[in-house]
């Protein structure tokens, strides 16, 4: 009973040391619970047949998160152990058995763990309601914020949490049991020793790291060209080489920069720079490996978050453009419009058809563009819930929902504001370009844009491609796609050619059903996107906490060093500024490479995939969201570490 009281009192007394640890545990539990609750949510699972993919993904990610967290917990506990070695030594000196000291420490940690888990579950319950809404929003299901508790998610979170926490604490308990009193007492008096590598050594390692990364990229290129299982070998080799390069580069570059900074005497001897360089030098030497590992983790996290967010949002943006109609049939042949009637009847037999339009894509003579008649175009707009367009009899407009063609079209219209079709001249309408998503690679055009002509002008052209767009009751069902395809190929459908027109050599036929698209594609991308987000946020939190603990573990030594410069006459505000500089640099070092890579990734994604995503600026937007989200987490941890640092190191009047 007395020990329990002591443990509880110790927790309260060490609250300052425990706060970052507690927040990290709470956030991990909250995120784990909320994502698991999402994965187990019956509402979400009912949205699509293959939604179980999300559950599997989140479960796998949770196992990975628990595994990674156990290391961070072990790391954090060792940090706290370091802070309290003297206290434990005192317990042992007054006769407490090592076993009891260990149990006391375990009891304290259990109190924190249970507290963090309970608070995390509570926060997670609130968060899961939000995540639920986000998923429903992606699937365009009507939603309101609802808090619901999932016992299954809670139980699985508890299991993972207990495993990761148990693993971490048991490792620390082993350390306490095996450490001698003398080590506990005098460990902090040991001098720090640095092993300095020569400039040549560092430079050689940097060159080798760059070579390894280049070799890795070459192997990646080879992998893309290889069709056999050898590709996996190339991939593995490439990943190993790139990661080793990133690690060593990150380890050596700060050392070299520090060396260069120290060689510049004017800079080195300017005000308190000498002290600052000494402090940073120590962090680079003693925590260099940790910072390099954190850099790799952050690189992976940022890349995962960016890819996850952009993939989800990009696919959703493209979905709207790919599947604007509940169902559509595209036959590249000059059929009579009445040929589509039986298709509408067939569909009506399977699900209600609220509206439909059969129309042509007209061939424009000597121009690489197709045309729609204004009435068909307005009917399509009506199906899509858009307002009709009014245009004069001698006018035309262009519809283009692909942003990357826009500049070319605009320029073309400025240079040539008139077109002549069959001797009739049309001028560009007051609103020359309309941009709503209409699917312009199959349904409303095949090139990404289409001309809209007055009905009279269009009727003088050849309707060489036949189309049917339908609005269905409740949006139809995914299997309608195969049903329609079967019907079109069954021989029951008897299309009629327009008089005086011939069937082309090769007839292309396409069926598009929105429900099928959602069910088969959106779920996969949602799963990837959410798993990516989940993993990356947790990785960032874990990396930040490792970085924070790394700094806090040096707090006693720092306190001593700052006391020296205080006596040497460095004013309080300069000391506060030095702490800010020191912590900012330490938090910035592992960030340089991940941020650079992320910016390159964003630029590369924009360059290679930007045009394929139909919403302009989506890649940079989500790149910015990724960086902002990351900065919010990172700055929170930075702020907390700074707060604790200043509290411990500076006298109250200096803070």
């Amino acid at each position, binding site marked *: 009973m007395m020990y329990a009281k002591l443990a509880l009192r110790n927790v309260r007394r060490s609250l300052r040391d425990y706060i970052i640890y507690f927040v990290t545990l709470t956030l991990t539990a909250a995120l784990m619970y909320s994502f698991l609750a999402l994965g187990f949510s019956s509402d979400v699972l009912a949205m699509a047949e293959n939604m179980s993919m999300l559950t599997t993904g989140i479960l796998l990610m949770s196992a990975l998160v628990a595994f990674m967290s156990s290391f961070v917990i072990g790391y954090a506990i060792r940090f706290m152990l370091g802070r309290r070695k003297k206290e434990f030594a005192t317990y042992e000196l007054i006769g407490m058995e090592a076993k009891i000291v260990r149990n006391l420490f375990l009891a304290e940690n259990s109190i924190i763990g249970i507290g963090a888990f309970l608070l995390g579950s509570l926060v997670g319950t609130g968060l899961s309601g939000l995540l639920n809404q986000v998923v429903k929003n992606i699937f365009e299901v009507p939603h309101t914020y609802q808090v619901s508790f999932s016992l299954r998610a809670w139980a699985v979170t508890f299991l993972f949490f207990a495993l990761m926490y148990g693993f971490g604490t048991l490792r620390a308990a082993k350390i306490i049991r095996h450490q001698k009193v003398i080590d506990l007492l005098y460990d902090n008096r040991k*001098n720090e020793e640095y092993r300095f590598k020569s400039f040549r050594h560092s430079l050689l390692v940097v060159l080798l790291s760059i070579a390894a990364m280049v070799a890795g990229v070459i192997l990646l290129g080879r992998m893309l060209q290889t069709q056999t299982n050898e590709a996996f070998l190339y991939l593995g080799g490439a990943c190993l080489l790139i990661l080793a390069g990133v690690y060593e580069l990150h380890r050596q570059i700060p050392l070299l920069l520090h060396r260069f900074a120290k060689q510049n005497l004017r800079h080195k*001897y300017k005000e*308190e720079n*000498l002290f600052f360089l000494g402090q940073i030098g120590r962090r680079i030497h003693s925590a260099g490996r940790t910072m390099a590992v954190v850099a790799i983790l952050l690189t992976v996290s940022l890349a995962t978050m960016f890819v996850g967010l952009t993939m989800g949002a990009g696919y959703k943006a493209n979905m709207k453009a790919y599947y604007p109609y509940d169902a559509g049939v595209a036959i590249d042949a000059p059929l009579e419009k009445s040929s589509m009637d039986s298709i509408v009847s067939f569909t009506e037999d399977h699900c209600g058809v609220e509206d439909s339009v059969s129309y042509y894509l007209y061939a424009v003579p000597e121009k690489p563009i197709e045309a729609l008649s204004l009435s068909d175009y307005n009917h399509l707009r009506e199906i899509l819930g858009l307002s009709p367009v009014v245009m004069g009899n001698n006018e035309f407009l262009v519809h283009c929902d692909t942003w990357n063609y826009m500049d070319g079209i605009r320029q073309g219209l400025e240079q040539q504001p008139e077109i002549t079709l069959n001797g009739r001249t049309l001028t560009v309408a007051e609103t020359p370009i309309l941009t709503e998503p209409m699917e312009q690679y199959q349904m409303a055009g095949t090139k990404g844009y289409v001309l809209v002509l007055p009905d009279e002008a269009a009727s003088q052209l050849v309707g060489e491609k036949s189309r049917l767009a339908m609005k269905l009751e409740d949006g139809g069902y995914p299997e309608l796609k195969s049903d329609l395809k079967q019907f079109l190929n069954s021989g029951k459908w008897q299309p009629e050619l327009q008089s005086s027109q011939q069937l082309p050599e090769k007839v292309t036929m396409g069926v598009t059903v929105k429900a099928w698209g959602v069910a088969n594609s959106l779920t996969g991308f949602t799963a990837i996107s959410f798993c990516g987000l989940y993993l990356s946020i947790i990785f960032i939190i874990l990396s930040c906490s490792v970085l924070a603990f790394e700094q806090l573990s040096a707090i006693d030594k720092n306190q001593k060093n700052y006391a020296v*410069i205080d*006596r040497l*006459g460095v*004013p*309080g505000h300069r000391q506060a500024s030095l702490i800010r500089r020191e912590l900012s640099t330490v938090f910035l070092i592992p960030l340089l490479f991940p941020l650079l890579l992320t910016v390159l990734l964003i630029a590369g994604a924009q360059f290679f995939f930007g045009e394929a995503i139909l919403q302009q600026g989506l890649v940079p937007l989500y790149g910015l969201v990724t960086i902002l989200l990351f900065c919010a987490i990172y700055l929170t941890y930075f702020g907390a570490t700074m707060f604790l640092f200043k509290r411990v190191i500076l006298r109250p009047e200096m803070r």
Partner: protein
Amino acid sequence: MKEILKLDHIQKYYGNGGNVTKAIQDISFSVQEGEFVGIMGASGSGKTTLLNCISTIDTVSAGHIYLDGIDVTEINEKQIARFRRENLGFVFQDFNLLDTLTISENIALALTINKVPAGEIDGRVREMAGKLNITDILDKYPYQVSGGQKQRCACARAIINQPKLILADEPTGALDSHSSQMLLSTIQSINEDLGATILMVTHDAFSASYANRILFLRDGTIFTEIRKGGDSRRTFFEKILDVLTMMGGGMNDVR
């Protein structure tokens, strides 16, 4: 000779209400420029508190301390750092060197903080290292050198800015007898050759015998004061022992 330090009836109390500890009851004395003054006393006699008050690390409860005419008890928090930088040098028992810097950089640190031009720094460090016989270890880190060498480095750092007063708190406390002897000779030469004014707190009679004058503290007041005058160090050492015996300190404080 000019009066460099003057303590005027200083008192220092800790605690409040009915639980007040009088660390310094009433102390007044003065130190002339170029003097080497030792402060001795048993544990709890108030010697470290006195040093902390003089060095502006702690404040007095009453009285005034003047350093070269400036009342240090009236200096505000913003001016304290500048005052320390320009007027005081410190040598501590546990060296207080930064592990993160080399011996040379530790000495240079005091100059950089005092905004000495970068071009002058290396030369001044080398010159001071030569005087204190630590030139060979300038590029080493504190963990690579002996305790005596560390303390000489601390001395170099303390005097490189030519402060008006050097405060040494048990400078030989962490050293073996040989290193102590070497360090004390160094401190003595700093005092005699460089004309530095030194105030050294110690409970060790042998260390104190290097000073020119000793103030003995007991229960927060000056018990007595002795001067070396024309005595040899050995005679002065014996005089110190006599005072300690009279004070009841016993031979425990004698090395």
